[in-house]
């Protein structure tokens, strides 16, 4: 018995049994003359069939429905496309309001300013609004109406923007 062909046969038995490959003539001849390899070949051929009926009869549509429904119920808010878009807009609005608003206070409330960028706020439910609020930077969410940061509170980037807005 050739050790090499014996091992090669053993390694190839699963793919031949599954129909992905065929025996070549030397392998066929070895199988015909090797009782040990034939016993293993019979085992692997039978093992490939274990559970075939289960796979064939599995109720796929029911599984699709059940999994889809469960995913819908548990889908994280941040994965919903509409919420992702709104969070992005909110973040952009927050940056614009913090860095681009003039030093002289205006009567426009930050919340109202934000609302002009986010007309869809009315369509959001409580959970979605909460997520949106958390995405808005603290300076927008917490700054009381009418408070203006002192120039000494601004960093160099913010000061540069203020200067540009004054100088035009």
């Amino acid at each position, binding site marked *: 018995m050739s050790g090499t062909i014996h091992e090669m046969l*053993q390694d190839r038995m*699963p*793919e031949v*049994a*599954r129909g*992905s490959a065929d025996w070549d003539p030397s392998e066929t001849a070895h199988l015909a003359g090797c009782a040990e390899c034939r*016993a*293993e070949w*019979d*085992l*692997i051929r*039978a*093992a*490939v*069939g*274990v*559970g*075939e*009926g*289960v*796979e*064939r009869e*599995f*109720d*796929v549509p*029911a*599984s*699709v429905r*059940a*999994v*889809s429904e*469960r*995913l*819908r119920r*548990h889908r994280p808010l941040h*994965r*919903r*496309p509409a919420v992702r878009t709104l969070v992005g807009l909110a973040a952009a609005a927050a940056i614009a309001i913090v860095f681009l608003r003039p030093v002289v206070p205006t009567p426009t409330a930050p919340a109202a300013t934000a609302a002009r960028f986010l007309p869809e706020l009315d369509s959001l439910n409580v959970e979605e609004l909460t997520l949106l609020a958390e995405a808005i930077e603290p300076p927008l969410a917490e700054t009381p109406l009418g408070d203006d940061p002192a120039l000494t509170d601004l960093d160099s980037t913010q000061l540069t923007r203020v200067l540009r807005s004054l100088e035009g």
Partner: protein
Amino acid sequence: MPLPAEPTSPSDHDLVAAWRSGDERAAARLVERHAPAIARFLYSSGAVRDELDDLVQETMFRAFRRLDSWRGDAGLRSWLFSIAGNLLKDEARKRKGRTVLSLADHDAPSHTGPDHELEADEARERIRAGLLTLPRLQREVFLRRVQLGEAYDAIAVALGTTPGAARVHYHQAVKRLKELVR
């Protein structure tokens, strides 16, 4: 007139990317594609037939929740088999001491077909019973080779071992099953 080219099915990578972008239909397609094979793997690993639907659904649900951790280097089905195997282990732990495999729970439908078909069905059932006596690692290596057609390198990555060790586990499983089903 040449026939129009058949539309190719989207790959698992494409469907996963679509799901990550919010396409719920991609999830349905992934379930359609992989659920039957997962059911077969779970059954071959000892799951009770009546519980297969729930186990498969839980496997797919867990997979979708963790899809960000699928790096794509291993095949998706291989990754799903890992989740299914761990789920079965969790279930077995919960049932400590209670039998997982029912003696009446078998794959072969009752039929009056030719004797050789009956013998083949009985052989498969003996092998399934034998698989349940194997250590988990040997059983999983064997099933991945035989049912999934995975190479030893891929099996090693999936199960956290080496290709050489996977080969040894496979041959140990074969030797043990040959003794049991003789």
